[in-house]
């Protein structure tokens, strides 16, 4: 047993402690510690990626995870209620592993991006590192309670990072973000307790041991006559409790994803957040929502996932189309990209809803690729904002002649985002579309028309990106304020350093998607197969 995952989680916490001890005027040292810590995390996650055994064919959820660590954490005897058992239980499979790698990479880039920060450096990096640890913790937790702890733990640093280091409307944005996602997690909490009461086993002493273990929940080890077991007859307003639980979880994670109509916190949070935080928000935090759907919502309630595939797919479709339309109407570049995130995360939802192996692997791929692309896009907005303290699209034009390198990256990532083949965005989208259109003939969960309409999304995203390119980068060079002129320098070495790795990854993943899809193939296949078989079984009960 290696402690790789624990290292990944706790290293940043340790680093945060160290920074906490340091006096706050040692800004350089603090930054370096944060950088070293996140770099170590990155190295560890690369080791994770390399040592991950993609050839493993799982037989059940219990052996689907690798690098597992299981330590009893809280054990309470509750008298007649049995035994309260919370474990420190972590592990990764093909769905969480890429997301861990994605997060650690973006975390390093986020530190580089915050390098010029001068005010309240100490507090910033402490919060940043706490966030970093909880993010990874969230992706590897296999105990629902542990997951929930990390899930909530992310909110606080995020709230302060936006609320203190953000833009002019930061307090509105951060409170909106906080309350909205807190509301979502309340839904999750309710289901968590319900599941806890329903899942477990009777041990050899005849004592009922309830558990938060996600593995048990996914395997469907329900107690007899428990609230959420598939055999239960409990219903509220004629809807079974399992459906309610699914809907609650869905709501909780859709807010995080975010999907239309629960998305309005996102543009506000993005616009006010500092660049590095936007990067993490779009690049990683949204994926927590997607990941939660995979790991918890869908894996535990496969029967309802099949039943409600159609509405979920429609939410995805609406997000794709609607998000794209609203993006086009934005005048603030950062808002535009925030809405494009909504649109692209719609593909994640659609692919997952299809429950075909193409759709699901496309969905995972889209999460990773969107992490890189949107991260880079927010960095690019940061570039222009650093120089002008303005993000309005109509305030500049013709940047291509003044900043050719910058324009090169913008064109690259815009086109990656609109799904140009050869770049990673295409692979995710096309797999999702194949999954969605093929769903009708593969498993019949929803009509192929949803997929066909979703193809319109590729037109819509092309429309707003190209229009933005034309307005900001082509034509004669012009800026609203003359004072900006002197600052319009092409990208610096630091910015170069952040963008190049992302650009390389976007190209490599676009040309050789099997680098990512190969190792996760078995996990995805298992995910889909077990979901379908278990779901059908539950439905028939």
């Amino acid at each position, binding site marked *: 047993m290696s402690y790789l995952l624990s290292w990944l989680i706790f290293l940043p916490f340790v680093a945060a402690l160290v920074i906490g001890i340091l006096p706050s005027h040692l800004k350089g040292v603090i930054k370096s510690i944060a950088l070293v810590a996140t770099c170590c995390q990155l190295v560890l996650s690369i080791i994770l990626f390399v040592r991950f055994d993609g050839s493993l064919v799982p037989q059940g959820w219990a052996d689907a995870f690798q690098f597992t660590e299981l330590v009893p954490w809280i054990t309470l005897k509750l008298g007649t209620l049995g035994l309260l058992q919370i474990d420190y239980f972590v592990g990764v499979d093909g769905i969480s592993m890429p997301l861990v790698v994605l997060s650690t990479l973006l975390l390093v880039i986020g530190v580089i991006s915050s390098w010029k920060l001068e005010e309240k450096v100490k507090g910033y990096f402490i919060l940043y590192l706490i966030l970093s640890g909880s993010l990874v913790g969230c992706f590897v937790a296999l105990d629902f309670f542990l997951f929930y702890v990390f899930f909530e733990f992310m909110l606080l640093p995020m709230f302060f990072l936006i609320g203190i280091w953000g833009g002019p409307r930061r307090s509105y944005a951060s409170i909106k973000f906080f309350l909205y996602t807190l509301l979502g997690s309340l839904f999750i909490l309710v289901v968590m307790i319900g599941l806890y009461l329903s899942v477990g086993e009777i041990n050899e002493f005849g004592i009922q041991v309830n558990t938060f273990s996600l593995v048990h929940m996914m395997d469907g080890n329900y107690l007899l006559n428990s609230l959420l077991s598939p055999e239960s007859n409990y219903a509220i307003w004629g809807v079974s409790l399992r459906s309610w639980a699914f809907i609650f979880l869905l709501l909780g994670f859709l807010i995080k994803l975010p999907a239309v109509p629960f998305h309005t*916190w996102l543009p506000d949070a993005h616009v006010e957040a500092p660049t590095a935080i936007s990067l993490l928000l779009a690049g990683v935090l949204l994926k927590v929502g997607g990941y939660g759907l995979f790991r918890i919502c869908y894996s535990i309630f496969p029967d309802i996932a099949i039943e409600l595939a159609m509405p979920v797919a429609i939410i995805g479709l609406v997000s794709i189309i*609607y998000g794209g339309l609203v993006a086009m*109407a934005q005048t603030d570049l950062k808002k535009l990209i925030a809405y494009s995130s909504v649109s692209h995360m719609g593909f994640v939802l659609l692919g997952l809803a299809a429950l075909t192996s193409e759709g699901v692997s496309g969905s995972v791929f889209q999460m990773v690729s969107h992490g890189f692309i949107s991260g880079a896009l927010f960095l690019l907005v940061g570039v222009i904002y650093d120089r002008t303290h303005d993000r309005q699209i109509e305030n500049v034009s013709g940047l291509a002649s003044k900043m050719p390198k910058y324009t090169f990256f913008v064109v690259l990532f815009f086109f990656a985002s609109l799904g*140009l083949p050869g770049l990673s965005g295409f692979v995710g989208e096309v797999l999702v579309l194949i999954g969605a259109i093929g769903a009708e003939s593969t498993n019949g969960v929803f009509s192929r028309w949803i997929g066909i309409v979703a193809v319109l999304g590729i037109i819509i995203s092309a*429309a707003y990106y*190209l229009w933005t390119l*034309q307005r900001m980068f*082509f*034509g004669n060079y012009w800026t609203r304020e003359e004072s900006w002129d002197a600052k319009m320098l092409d990208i610096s070495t630091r910015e170069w350093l952040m963008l190049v790795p992302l650009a390389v990854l976007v190209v490599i993943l676009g040309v050789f998607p099997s680098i990512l899809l190969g190792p996760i193939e078995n996990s995805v296949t298992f995910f889909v197969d077990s979901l379908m078989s278990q779901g059908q079984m539950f439905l028939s009960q």
Partner: protein
Amino acid sequence: MLPLLGGLVAYFTGVKHAAKVSLVGMLPGAVVSVLLLLLCRDTPVTLRWEWMPGFTLGWRVDHISAVLVCLVYFISLLVYLFSAHYLKSDPAIHRYYAKLGFFTTSMLGLLLADHLLLLFVFWELVGFSSYLLIGFWFADQVKAKSAREAFMVNRVADAGLLIGVILMITELGQPFLSEMTGQPASFIVNLAGFGLMIGALGKSAQFPFFGWLPKAMAGPTPVSALIHAATMVAAGVYLLVRVAPILTPVVLSVIAVIGALTALMAAVAALSQFDIKKVLAYSTISQLGYMVMGIGVGAADSSLFHLWTHAFFKAGLFLGAGAVIHYYHRLHHDDHSFDTQDMRQMGGLRKMLPITFISFVICGLALSGLPFFSGFLSKEGILTNAWIWAAGQSNNGYWMAYAVSDMAFITALITPIYIGRQILLVFFGSPRSAVKKLIGMEPMFTLKMPLILLAVGSVWFLHALNPLDANGWWLSGFMFGEFSEPASGNIPMYTMVLSIALAVAGLAIAYMFFGPKSTRVTDFKNASAPHTWYGSISYQSWYIEPIYDQMAKGYSVLVNLAKWVDVKIIDRCVNSAGVWSVVLSKVLAIIDREIIDGLVNFIAWLSKGIGNMFTGIQSGKVQNQLVWMITILLILILWFQF
């Protein structure tokens, strides 16, 4: 990959040597392409690999693709050469060659792809490089806008293609072009067929997508020659040829109708343009219409033949136009108000640019479809097949089918008119703006050679021995093998006579109107956009752009509506939920303060009062104390009693 490498190297070697490096980069590729042709002579070469789990993609070189690869290489080489001269003084020439290399690579990938998804990949990349090249002079807002519009129109069509491709993969299980077999007609097959068709129509600039091609003329002229005349726009035709086995009769009929319609509409539009390149752009659309129609009527081999001959003469025409533009550009390089592409300012160039003149005329005659030129051979096949198809359809009761072949023949009449008009206006007559002989306008290697080679390629003998036999294409057997027996047998005499007559008549009409002695020509300098309704339809090319603009406007209304919904409804709900919860908490606070807390306070107040009373008691008035004690005692006794 070689052109891309060449282009990249060219980019990094900088402005000075970009052209040479790119050319050198092209040469080994050209050799390889000929080798490929030899290699696949007996059996097609196939290469497959697993791109990602569950998706095996494949390359394949068979006769058709090998021939077209050679064609692309040949035209590209000439365009590379020509560009070296044309863009000699452009400071971004290295960028130009990088983009051009990218295009050539994508185009070759498109031709060699065997899997539909791979084809789609290169299809998009071709569109993307076209976008980059149209917007090559991006500092000009108008050109950047044209690039965007061209890409958008393509993108809309590509969405159709993507639907078709995905349906082919998921529903029909036929992702490989080489393994396509006919399917019994069903809804899905039709849907997939229409999807693929829409994609092809978009790329080949057919109705209703043809508006993007004239826009694409904003790019450098050699680019127009390569991408928007010879190669990329032919990709749609190529795709249709490849997927023809699964196209159902319904889809084929629609294709035939759209092809014929486009041929006619674009030819009419070409009649009244002032811009030298726009005439050629509409002409390209019109000729592509022929090819598309050819596929619809089941003459895929003739269509490919036309694609082949058209690549030569149209590239020749575009490069000729490029030479003309370049000439005026040098003549007026200080005067930025002078429009170097406006035919109203031209005339009498035959003495200034003799080689350009001769090659332009030869290519123009090939376009008109005169015998002894290449265009005649290939067009003849299409026209005949259209006629036969129409006859067959009308035997089945669809007499309307003759409309298709009629439109094709009318187009055959209009074609020589507009190209004759162009030749007469540009090269004959007296100059309508000052001209003078410039030295070094037609340098041997980079300008003359491409033009001469393309002009030679427009004459019949390179393609067939018999100048009158449309089935005589020597590559025909090679490309189609046993699969295609000449669809039509021998060319019936009457269609041939008819089409020759139409071509000659067209040229005569052109001469009548625009001959050197006509007043129309001398007044042409001051010509303005036509006022008559038919003139406007032609000049505005059927108002396709206003229609696009209206659609864009409609779209932006939709977009703003979505934003309004987002801000006014969804976000307002969220905010008001926030506000209401604050209000609720305020109310609760009041309740808390006034009622719950009030109760506590009340009790406190009460006990205080009682306490005060008791303070009174304890203050030492014993009498009072006694009275109180008795009272309390009494109360207690009474309490317990009852």
